[in-house]
């Protein structure tokens, strides 16, 4: 079911596919969101599958008391809907009694709850009446039928935006940086904003439920992550204006990103140079040692997080890698336009997935490195191909100047490992015991 569409940019036609999608659902974004917002608890209303997904995906990051849980629907819940709201109230009471320190309770919808049309917003409204102001309750959907991986964060931020306070006449928030960033990156960016003399910068999400920005006409916002289509629309509907830029990956990406902000806020050229000069130099220097590993290497991206166009642009323009195919679970044309325009003409872009066909294409192209999910990585490695598991890009500080080298290193690691291991996979498979 391949259909060719003209993407309306310099790249080749977009391959759009509908088949098996080998991706995470939006629930997985809870894994980083619950660490970021430190007084929030994420309660998934779903099935045993959802609970199992969360603990499998959370992997070794298991706490005996995590700040997320699943209200598992049972047979009797499915029998009558009225009963289910009572059940949920009971679960929430139990939870809040156990964790009275929780300030923000987030109800997260799943596939089963969406399919039976369980009205979470009604439940959130009702629970808010009972528990506010001690505990704020909000909701969003992280279901697989609606969201892919990082889109869960998009929906969470949208929910936050929808109930964020309107900014007053003082207009305290001037710039919102939207998209969950590692704390260290957030701190670096804050220092750079100080150096640029830009005041009133707030991050969305904040580190606690109290630290959420106010929004109003005159608020400007910039996306730090490429997967925030819905959140951007919600911000715009509140009167905020988007600053357009490519994303802050690599030295060029970060410079372009800060330049777009600086231009919006009328920062003089020399001040911009003074603030970014040293970190730019550092970023370039850090990248240098990785270039020999990446120049001319052929890369193939499977869809995962929507970071793929930005990662491909970084690899191509800052490390000289060659890009064979850029897969993305979803392409937000407007937000990705800048990234796609920087890819060489003819680069294959794919949106959606038929994993079997994509595997066929990857095998045929025989790239030097395949960026893919963990369900595919080991099987590819066993075929003698090199892979970089893509989830790591969502869990590692990669944005900004100081991380430019680290970002390149993530791609280099499998290549370097290949060169270090003396025994290849040429051996016979482990002999069975009989």
């Amino acid at each position, binding site marked *: 079911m391949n259909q060719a569409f003209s993407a309306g940019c310099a790249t080749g036609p977009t391959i759009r596919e509908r088949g098996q999608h080998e991706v995470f659902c939006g629930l997985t974004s809870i894994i980083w969101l619950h660490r970021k917002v430190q007084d929030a608890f994420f309660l998934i209303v779903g099935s*045993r599958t959802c609970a199992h997904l969360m603990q499998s995906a959370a992997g070794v990051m298991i706490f005996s008391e995590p700040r997320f849980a699943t209200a*598992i629907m049972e*047979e009797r819940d499915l029998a009558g809907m009225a009963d289910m709201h009572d*059940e949920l109230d009971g679960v929430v009471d139990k939870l809040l009694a156990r964790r009275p320190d929780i300030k923000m309770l987030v109800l997260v919808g799943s596939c089963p709850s969406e399919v039976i049309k369980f009205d979470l917003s009604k439940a959130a409204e009702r629970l808010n009446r009972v528990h506010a102001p001690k505990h704020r309750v909000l909701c969003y959907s992280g279901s697989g039928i609606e969201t892919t991986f990082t889109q869960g964060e998009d929906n969470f931020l949208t929910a936050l935006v929808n109930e964020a306070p309107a900014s007053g006449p003082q207009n305290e928030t001037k710039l919102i940086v939207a998209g969950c960033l590692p704390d260290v990156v957030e701190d670096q960016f804050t220092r750079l904003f100080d150096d640029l003399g830009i005041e009133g910068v707030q991050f969305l999400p904040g580190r606690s439920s109290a630290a959420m920005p106010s929004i109003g006409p005159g608020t400007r916002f910039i996306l730090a992550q490429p997967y925030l289509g819905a959140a951007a629309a919600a911000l715009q509907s509140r009167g905020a204006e988007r600053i357009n830029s490519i994303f802050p990956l690599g030295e060029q990406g970060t410079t372009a990103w800060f330049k777009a902000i600086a231009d919006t806020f009328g920062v003089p050229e020399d001040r911009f140079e003074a603030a970014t000069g040293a970190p730019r130099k550092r970023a370039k220097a850090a990248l240098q040692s990785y270039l020999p590993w990446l120049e001319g290497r052929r890369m193939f991206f499977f869809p995962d997080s929507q970071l793929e166009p930005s990662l491909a642009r970084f690899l191509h323009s800052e490390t000289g890698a060659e890009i064979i195919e850029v897969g993305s679970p979803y392409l937000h044309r407007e937000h990705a336009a800048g990234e796609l325009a920087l890819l060489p003409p003819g680069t294959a872009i794919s949106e959606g997935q038929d994993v*079997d066909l994509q595997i066929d294409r990857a095998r045929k192209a025989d790239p030097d490195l395949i960026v893919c999910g963990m369900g*595919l990585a080991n099987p590819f490695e066993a075929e003698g191909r090199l892979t970089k598991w893509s989830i790591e890009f969502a869990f590692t500080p990669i944005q900004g100047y100081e991380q430019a080298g680290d970002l390149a290193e993530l791609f280099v690691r499998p290549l370097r490992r290949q060169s270090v291991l003396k025994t290849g996979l040429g051996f016979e498979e482990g002999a069975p*015991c009989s």
Partner: protein
Amino acid sequence: MQLSMWTYEGPPHVGAMRVAASMKDVHYVLHAPQGDTYADLLFTMIERRDSRPPVTYTTFQARDLGASTADIFKTACHDAVDRFKPRALLVGASCTAELLQDDPGGLAKTLDLDIPVVPLELPSYQKKETWGAAETFYQLVRACASNRRRPETIAANTCNILGPTSLGFRNRDDVCEIKALLEENGLNVRVVAPLGASPEDLARLPEAAFNIVLYPEIADTAARWLKKAYGMPYLSTVPIGVSETRRFVAEARALAGLEPVPSPSENKDRLTWYSRSIDSTYLTGKRVFIFGDATHAIAAARIAANELGFEVCGLGTYMREFARDVRAAAKDYGLEALITDDHLVVEDAIIEARPELVLGTQMERHIAKRLRVPCAVISSPVHVQDFPARYSPQMGFEGANVIFDSWVHPLMMGLEEHLLSMFRDDFEFNDGATASHLHAHSPAAASNQQTAPAGTSVEDQITLPASATLWTDEAEKELKKIPFFVRGKARRNTESFATDNGIHPITVETLYDAKAHFAR
């Protein structure tokens, strides 16, 4: 609705995947929403499988719900059969698809595929992973092995091994160990299933004289059906531990009509001697809390009590289907079995029992880490480190050797234990420090020394806070002089002694009165 932080078992379709992934030439088409492919990671990452599990997901999305998800399913079936050319096809639904009621079985029938199609009915909102695996294996065996003719003459020493699966705890090595043990004893193992078997192998199941069920949770249903359909007897003694392995060998030989001679591999058993050697004397009466799947929990309790000389102070399982067996086993140790799938309840039970060692699953490892009690893993669910590269069975004589090492390892060694009770205030080697051979694994100990107020240590964290007020300062100080690994028990004994005799507050006298009282 059930509030769940962690689950001991996945949904039933994960059980079905385990059976499909165990076998050759079987493919599973799973009607499931986008995202359910996370289950592939269990196989490619935790088990480090080198190929994709043989599962095709329909991965429908919200926009598909308006149109026909049934058509998506049919297309996926067609494509999967064309591409992977399996000899048998499993079709089923995940929890969300179950709500759509597309009837994968009926749909697959309309496709006129020329291979056996096994529709799976797995009620996701009632049942769980292990049940799903057992049901899938049973349905597959029925589909492949029904209407077979049992050969006229069957060699009495032929048998099948049933139950080992992909993602099973140490199943890979258990099969090696038990197969070798049976063969040494003159038995002829025909088919091992589902692990490594093809649909054709399942069709050959009735050609053996009897079946050996290594993992009853997975293969009990199938073995009972084979007995009903073909009169095949089956043996379900689980050979974990030395005595059970001996019994297993004796029973297998008897079923095969062989003379009851001792197993030639007895000399591989080192557990018996290791446990007898005087270095192990200090293991006597160590309190151990056991939780896991039914088979491993029951076996562990038997080894702990009879072969290592521990005192079993708690026994439980998350498998309700096998609750009766675990209750019966618990009775042998004078205990009430804990049957729950709520890890918070397990945590409370561990705190209450105050064990010196926890034998459990991955969850108990986390609980034990928090409570700073030594722990070893004996059962699924487990993480990647329990799919080791080295040979490490749990079954048979080598399995017993592995068990001796891995259960004793987390405990503090004898001399260290003595020194601790003689000199309490050593600046390096004190209550807060864990066993020296475990140092690298226990960074928590050092940080605890810095952050915890003086005098707080291991079992104080698992003491119910209310009890603190019952004690005089002096008695509390005296209590601290008792070695930390038995201090929790001493505290509990003293408190129950005080309650029984109406003593308040607890003084140093009370402490020693209680000690004398319980010594009787």
